[in-house]
């Protein structure tokens, strides 16, 4: 147990055993897949039409927004080139699906149906349509385990979108809140501030939304402010998630941790 906790030697054993466990998880998932399929195939013509209409409008809206973003992106790149700093937008992504499987209670982990075969790796960031969800902690050949950002052992480097103030968002174990650690009482932070990933630590790509500040408790007796953040990602509702390969991914975290173990 100590070996598993402190080092990563047993990761291969776990990954091999996960092949045996995967059929079980798949079986458990099957009834949910079937009900979903049934729901999808017995929808009425009208509801499909209305959904199509809605999606069309959304698509129009998004593509018009995207045009604007493209202009901004090129402008941003040009300005950055003027400043001689490299910054890359756009990452490779793959869509994965959650398996309807409950993991251990009191932890926030989920199983997705992509593994080493699809190129997933340990520590890979996972996002959904609204923001960062978490990172992969165990990779099997066909499936991986994702630690959500709300897990009490998870922390993610973030910055406040409005002014670039850096902080660390730590999971609380409650599914609807994160906490910003070590922000002084006089920090410039307001309710409603958007928190985005800062990309420090080179694990999460920079610039993805993490959450929105919902509550700030200032207690003069405490050295730090208590800032509550509601995660942007719909951690309890979504079925499809995105695996992200950050563009400038050079396996820094991976090698440095290996190096530390070998020393």
């Amino acid at each position, binding site marked *: 147990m100590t070996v598993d906790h402190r080092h990563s030697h047993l990761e291969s054993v776990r990954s091999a055993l996960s092949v*045996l466990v995967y059929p*079980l998880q798949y079986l458990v998932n099957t009834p949910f897949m079937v009900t979903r399929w049934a729901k999808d195939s017995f929808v009425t013509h009208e509801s499909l039409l209305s959904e199509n209409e809605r999606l069309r409008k959304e698509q129009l809206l998004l593509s018009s927004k995207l045009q604007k973003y493209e202009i901004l992106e090129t402008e941003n790149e040009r300005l950055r080139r003027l400043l001689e700093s490299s910054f890359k937008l756009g990452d490779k992504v793959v869509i994965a699906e959650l398996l*309807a499987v409950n993991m251990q209670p009191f932890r926030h982990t989920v199983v997705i149906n992509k593994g080493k075969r699809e190129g997933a790796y340990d520590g890979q960031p996972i996002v959904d349509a609204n923001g960062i969800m978490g990172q992969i902690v165990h990779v099997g050949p066909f499936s991986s385990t994702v630690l959500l950002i709300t897990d009490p052992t998870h922390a993610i480097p973030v910055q406040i979108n409005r002014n670039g103030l850096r902080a660390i968002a730590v999971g609380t174990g409650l599914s609807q809140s994160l906490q910003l650690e070590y922000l002084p009482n006089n920090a410039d932070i307001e309710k409603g501030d958007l928190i985005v990933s800062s990309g420090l630590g080179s694990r999460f790509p920079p610039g993805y939304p993490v959450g929105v500040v919902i509550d700030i408790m200032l207690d003069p007796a405490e050295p730090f402010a208590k800032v509550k953040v509601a995660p942007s990602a719909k951690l309890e509702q979504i079925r499809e998630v995105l695996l992200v390969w950050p563009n400038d991914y050079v396996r820094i975290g991976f090698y440095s941790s290996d190096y530390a173990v070998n020393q």
Partner: protein
Amino acid sequence: MNTEKQHGGGVIFFSFIVALMLTAMPLPEWAINWRPAWVAMVLIYWCMALPHRVGIGVGWLLGIFLDVLQGTLLGQNAIGLAILAFLTLKSHQRVRMYPLVQQALVICLFVVVYQLLSLWVRGIMGIPPRSWTYWMPAFTSMVLWPWLFIILRDLRRRYHVS
């Protein structure tokens, strides 16, 4: 040993598979903490009914599978289930004679021991559970034990597992 009497291993295997599946089955948010310790209960039953076939080794192996399934530390459930199997083997002759209600109480105690071991490991890792509902599985296991016992006993008699 009379090896020709050992049959019905498939039934034991199948019951463990079902227990593992029930452990992974998604439940609504409020019910998650009430999920009985299915694997522990099935293991206790087989240890009690067939102590010469199912024992500490099986418990340990099952625990490793449960660890991989649940994403816990490798060995966290394994040590709990192995010790659970040991306790059951030690007391199976007595517990077998008890009426069902008294058996259920003993099962509650066993599951508490199993959870306590798990709690220690989590405490050492620094991720203790946040609420008292951590202990609910012991209670639900106790309540469901008589039904599980009757189902597994009938299965065992039907398929002559020995």
